[in-house]
């Protein structure tokens, strides 16, 4: 196994290459474009045997991806943000086709206002669709997770498409050391796609994705998709176990960092969670009993893993890099609902929304969030949710507003 400095996008391209994806429907969008450019170059140079086709929109791209998977080939695709949303109708549709494939989403904030910088609102919008989702914190994890994702998606107990999410800029354009597994080893871990009987061919005509009339049919099909998704946690653990055996790297549905006897915890997903690891190290050095929980699998929701990991924890700072307008942070909302089953022993949750549109989160902010979580645990009461945002930042916005003459509210006559 050789190691290289690769960007997250480069690691994603390697994941698709090693998985021997046959078909790559593509459409460019910042910050994922480098993935398809890399794959296109490899194909043009004869290094990769696959067909890459640029569709004219992400809606069409996702349709083509699902249709090809429903026909019986291994499919890879990638998108971000506005593109993911443009294809949203088909995200739901192809999940219902039970078409297994891997879609890499390079997370980027959503308009309005338009931005190129990362946050997690785009991937959060897919959570009800039937796609599974797995979040990566490092470039190595991106490559590894793509390989595991195919195994999970194609498993007969699941047969659902999977989104592998990585942060724009902080992972997509950032180089880190990545061990690139040898092809023969990947082939051992991931055999060729076996579509079973679900494919198109002349000798076995099938009408796929037919409409239904009647609620009993609809409820059945929709709920079966849900049951299949719920099975994916067990399938993930099996795949991760096999992965660890062959490649020596272990992944859990929820990563636990320094959670031994932890009284407090950060809960965070994605690449910024490594900053939380750093904060955990500093706080531990300063005498805190604090750790980090990093859910990797968010759909299906790893409720059992989270409840188990939070046993004995008194205060939690949940850090959302997203906002459900009118409600608050999605991770927080879902965790609070899951914790309802813990009864009186459950930790107090403090909700923080930060990193929107790529905003950085400083170490001092982590230490302050830990303090807030501690105070909340002592009081037994959660504080109101907080947007991580400073005086300095507001001054900057005021300056921009002045230029835009936003203060001049009078109507022109």
């Amino acid at each position, binding site marked *: 196994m050789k190691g290289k400095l690769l960007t997250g996008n480069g690691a994603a391209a390697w994941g698709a290459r090693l998985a021997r994806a*046959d*078909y790559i*429907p593509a459409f460019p969008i910042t910050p994922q474009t480098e993935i398809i450019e890399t794959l296109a170059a490899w194909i043009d140079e004869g290094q990769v045997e696959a*067909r890459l*086709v640029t*569709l*004219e*929109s992400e*809606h*069409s*791209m996702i*349709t*083509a*991806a*699902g*249709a*090809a*998977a*429903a*026909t*019986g*080939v291994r*499919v890879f695709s990638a998108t971000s943000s506005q593109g993911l949303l443009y294809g949203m*109708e*088909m995200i739901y*549709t192809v999940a219902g086709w039970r078409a297994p494939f891997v879609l890499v989403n390079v997370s980027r904030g959503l308009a309005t206002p338009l931005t190129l910088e990362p946050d997690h609102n785009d991937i959060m919008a897919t959570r009800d669709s039937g796609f599974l989702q797995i979040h990566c914190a490092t470039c190595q994890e991106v490559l590894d997770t793509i390989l595991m994702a195919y195994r999970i998606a194609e498993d007969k107990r699941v047969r659902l498409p999977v989104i592998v999410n990585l942060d724009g800029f902080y992972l997509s354009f950032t180089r880190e050391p990545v061990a690139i597994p040898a092809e023969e080893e990947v082939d051992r871990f991931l055999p060729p796609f076996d579509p079973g009987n679900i494919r*198109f*061919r*002349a*000798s076995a*005509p*099938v*009408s*796929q*994705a*037919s*409409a*239904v*009339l009647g609620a009993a*049919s609809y409820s059945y099909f929709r709920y079966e998709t849900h049951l299949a998704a719920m099975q994916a946690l067990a399938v993930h653990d099996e795949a991760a176990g096999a992965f660890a055996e062959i490649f020596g790297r272990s992944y859990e549905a929820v990563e636990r960092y320094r959670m031994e006897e932890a009284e407090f915890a950060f809960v965070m997903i994605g690449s910024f969670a490594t900053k939380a690891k750093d904060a955990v190290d500093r706080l531990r050095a300063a005498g805190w009993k604090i750790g980090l929980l990093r859910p990797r699998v968010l759909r299906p929701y790893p409720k059992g893993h989270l409840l188990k990991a939070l046993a004995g924890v008194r205060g939690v700072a949940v850090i959302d890099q997203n906002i459900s307008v009118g409600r608050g942070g999605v991770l927080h909302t879902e965790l609070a609902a899951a914790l309802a089953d813990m009864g009186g022993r459950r930790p107090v949750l403090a909700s923080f929304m930060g990193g929107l549109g790529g905003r950085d989160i400083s170490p001092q902010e982590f230490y302050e969030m830990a303090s807030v979580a501690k105070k909340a645990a002592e009081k037994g009461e959660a504080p109101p949710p907080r947007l991580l945002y400073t005086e300095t930042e507001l001054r900057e916005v005021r300056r921009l507003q002045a230029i835009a003459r936003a203060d001049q509210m009078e109507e022109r006559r």
Partner: protein
Amino acid sequence: MSETAFKRMKDLPSAHLLGTGTAMCPGCGGLQGFQGIYDLLGEKSVVVNAAGCMTLLSIYPFTPFRGSWLYTAMASAPAGAQGVRDALDILMEKKKMPPEENLDVVVLTGDGAAYGMGLSATSGAIERGLDFLYVCYDNEGYGNTGQQYSGATPHGARTATSKGPEGYRGQKKDLFSIWAAHSPSYVATVIGAEPLDLARKVEKARKLAGPRFLILLAPCPPGWDFDPKESVEIGQLAVRTGVWPLKEYVNGEIVHTKVPYSRLPVEEYLKRQGRFHHLFSPKRNDEVLNEVQARVDAYWQGVKEKSPVH
């Protein structure tokens, strides 16, 4: 003409392949034309469908197809076709599927998708040289939702969203020319009421590869407001009045396969349909009628000028 297997009506297949028991309206001109098309497509096909009346051909667990079917969404049937076609090609290239298992990929949509929402996906598919046949059953409106006007609605037609005294104020979009401008392999207009012409064109389309398009005018009893039994006759009138030119685009040229020499006045076609009733009653709307006639006249004048041999 000598290359066709369909010289006379007796050369047409004597049994239809498509199953009975579908939910299309009695007298559906689209289904009637599609019967003739599916007869020649056969069961080694996969029909990729966009939202419209014919989505209801296959309602779980009932399907009329002997071949395969994939329902996609309204805007992206050509992209679905792209995915299936590419996947079949990949499977054959990689020897994971023998060529006998290959399928013809056929897109089937109404005018709503073809003239409007699906135009982007269509344009992309032609541009990529996708090997597929696109069949559009054109009933000149969004039929499945109650016949609201679409890009295919003709001037003056009453629809659920154009109930004013003059009917629809727009003009029917020229989808034939839009396709032809992309330089595809084949484009043709067809109609179920002319089954021999239709069969020849399907035959021709099947012999070619690349993007091919058949626009099937589909007289629609509930949408156009006429008695179902008149469905074929109204189709014949569409051709005989020159309103629906039967033509094909191939090798960069447009050829008319049927030229109505003594064209009937368009009102012979219009007056049979309730959707144009307001042009005749309570008062004749000569302005709109003359407009429609003038457009049809101008079209055929142009055809005559381009090919005087006709």
